[in-house]
């Protein structure tokens, strides 16, 4: 059994760590690229959402490296992602790829079903204690990963030169991949913070306080730089500090551990914040998007960007509600819809225009409330 899984940003670091700790042979799909997407687009239903197409591409590329089993998380709806596992299995089977698909999910809301599936993957050689230990360690890794990403978000706009920040990021990621003990894991953000301080002390940072933009929306497009065409990096290069509504560990805690763990950025508070605008969950992270937008607006962020794959049902609901938050808090909100046809130049132009608008607003040349038509409506 050679296990593979779909990419989602840096999640592979965590998943690889989990399986390696259990001595399960794991094939990390080659990094997602244009070729991956092309492979997936050929097989996927035309109107399926972007993540499904990229997933399929990942599997096919992993199959070339010998993978025969897919692990993916499941769900009970109503977001389409919950059905990805089964849908992908049928698509791949009809295309001639002989994959076994293991859907990690609590089928009836209980953790028992999840445990059984983990047991299937881990085989009989692993004791439960070892499995629990491996899961805990992988989870810890995801929390540290989020800390690293958050530090990089802060470093990018303050560094002036974009390359230095990316270099530090790559280095920290490497340390994280190599980290095999809790101590070495906890060293990673500390070392990164130190490196950032050193760089600043050496005079490598700009002096002005950067703009702050909150990224909300669908989790895959937030976490996967390929899907968002590196929007976070683009913003960083334009001198904007980015914060996200959802980080990997928060999602794992909510989605896989059913809220038993809360992660680096808990999602718990969002429904309450969203209440005045949306009183019910709508699947996916639609409710969290609305709640996070309120949160960012209250914390005084300069602007908010919503990311969603074309046709994402929960995010379309949220997109219909965000203009009210924009009006109430007088904060510019821009919605970016992403699919396989999204061009880098077009996206970059929109992001630059948005940042330009935020800058002018901040410098006082535009009065509050006079820029409310930025949502693209």
């Amino acid at each position, binding site marked *: 059994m050679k296990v593979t899984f779909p990419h989602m940003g840096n999640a592979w670091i965590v998943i690889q760590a989990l399986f390696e700790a259990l001595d399960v042979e794991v094939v990390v799909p080659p990094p997602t690229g244009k070729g991956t997407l092309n492979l997936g687009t050929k097989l996927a239903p035309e109107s399926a*959402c972007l993540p499904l197409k990229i997933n399929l591409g990942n599997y096919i590329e992993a199959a070339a490296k010998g993978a025969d089993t897919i692990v993916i998380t*499941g769900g009970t*709806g109503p977001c389409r992602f*919950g*059905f990805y596992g089964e849908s992908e299995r049928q698509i791949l089977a009809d295309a001639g790829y002989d994959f076994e698909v293991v859907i990690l999910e609590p089928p009836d809301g209980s953790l028992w079903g999840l445990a059984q599936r983990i047991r299937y993957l881990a085989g009989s050689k692993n004791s439960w204690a070892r499995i629990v230990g491996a899961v805990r360690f992988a989870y810890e890794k995801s929390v540290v990963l989020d800390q690293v990403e958050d530090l990089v978000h802060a470093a990018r706009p303050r560094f002036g030169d974009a390359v230095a920040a990316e270099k530090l990021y790559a280095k920290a990621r490497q340390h994280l991949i190599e980290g095999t003990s809790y101590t070495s894991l906890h060293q990673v953000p500390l070392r990164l913070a130190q490196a950032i301080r050193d760089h600043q002390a050496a005079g490598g940072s700009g002096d002005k306080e950067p703009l702050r933009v909150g990224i909300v929306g669908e989790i895959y497009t937030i976490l996967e730089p390929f899907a968002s065409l590196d929007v976070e990096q683009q913003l960083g290069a334009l001198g904007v500090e980015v914060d996200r509504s959802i980080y990997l560990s928060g999602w794992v805690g909510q989605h896989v551990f059913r809220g038993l763990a809360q992660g680096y950025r808990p999602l718990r508070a969002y429904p309450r914040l969203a209440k005045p605008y949306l*009183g*019910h969950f709508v699947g996916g992270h639609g409710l969290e998007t609305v709640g996070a937008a309120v949160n960012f607006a209250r914390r005084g962020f300069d602007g908010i960007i919503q990311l969603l794959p074309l046709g994402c049902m929960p995010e*379309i*609901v949220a997109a219909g509600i965000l203009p009210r938050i924009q009006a109430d808090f007088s904060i510019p909100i821009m919605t970016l819809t992403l699919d396989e046809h999204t061009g880098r130049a077009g996206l970059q132009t929109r992001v630059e225009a948005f940042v330009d608008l935020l800058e002018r607003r901040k410098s006082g040349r535009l009065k509050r409330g006079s820029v409310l038509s930025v949502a693209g409506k």
Partner: protein
Amino acid sequence: MKVGFPRAVYYYDYFPFWAGFFESLNLELVASPLTNRRIMESGLKKASDETCLPIKILAGHIQALKDVDALFLPRMVSTEEQTYLCPKLLGLPESIFPAVPQGMPVLTVNFNRRLGKRRLLAELEHFGASLGKSRVEVHRAFELGGEWQERFEKSRLKGLSFAESMEEFDPVVRPKRRKAEEGSQNLASATVRGKEPPAREGQGAEVTGREVTEQEVVGRGGSDRGVAEREVVGREVTERKVVGGEVTNRKVAGREAAGREPTGNTPEERKEPSLTIALVGHSYLTQETYANLNLLGRLQSQATVRLVEEVEAGRIAEGLRSQRKALFWSHARKILGAGSFFSRGDEVDGIIYLSCFGCGTDSITQDLLARVARREHKPYMVLTLDEHSGEAGLVTRLEAFLDMTERRVRRESDVSAHG
């Protein structure tokens, strides 16, 4: 108090329940007028442009409800214990507020069967209290609503048309009298007069549907037709080899067993509407005559039409058996189950899946059903509607599909199920 109910999305499946509920509470519930061009256009203006056609139509209907005291926009979360409705319905009414006219009060209640009947009733009681109704009254209303809903669904199961079943709950809906005849007139008049809602009093034109078809096809010449057929084929071209001759043989064998053996290529037979076509898709598309350019009427004039609503629960469950994981959307489950049932039997000759641009659930369901249909060698076509759907494109594809299906039935040659 007069309460308005938009004639869109959940209207087509759940209006009888709410009509009974409000009737029992002594409140008047009126539905908005039938969809027309004005409603469609005002909806397009007010709804977010990312959303799907049905929600855009909903926005139009909300604005069409002018002479009411309040709007009723329930949040239909789930109507069965294991499933959800579409996320966009879960986001109502908040996501549609931009379309609500200024100052119009909106009544809403969560309808969620997943939580069990007791919690659902508590929710409804709370809603009733806000209207000044007692617990007992709400319970009685819930009962009556349930009765009406059941009556509606039973009537649909019996094969009565949507209009016939809905008539007693919503007087605006009137069943057409001479169905087959009028259907063909609609087709004729629509083809002649371009994009306009089908006329009730059919105007002249003594042509049957089939003749119009052939005229059209001949008029267009061969090349156009080729294009249309390739469209039907879509991505499935690659499969052609696999299917081969064995398919048609199998199909024909089925027909002979069913005792409807085709006699050949006589011109008489060509005129007889002998095809049975299943039209699957969300009821708010298949029954939305304006938005789907009277697809149902057109089909009925040329073939016997079967719908998802006519398939019993047991058969739906049977149809779903080949899926490893159950779908979690009520409508998708019904569509896939009924579609699989139609694929397997010999009752229908072809399946048309009516979807709309931006429908998230359909993007998964139509693909799953395509795989089932392909395995069973049943002709299958997906029609996708949006606000720009043109008459000519729809008619061409429909004709091409019916032609192909008919030729398969008459075993003219080895016509593959994919075109």
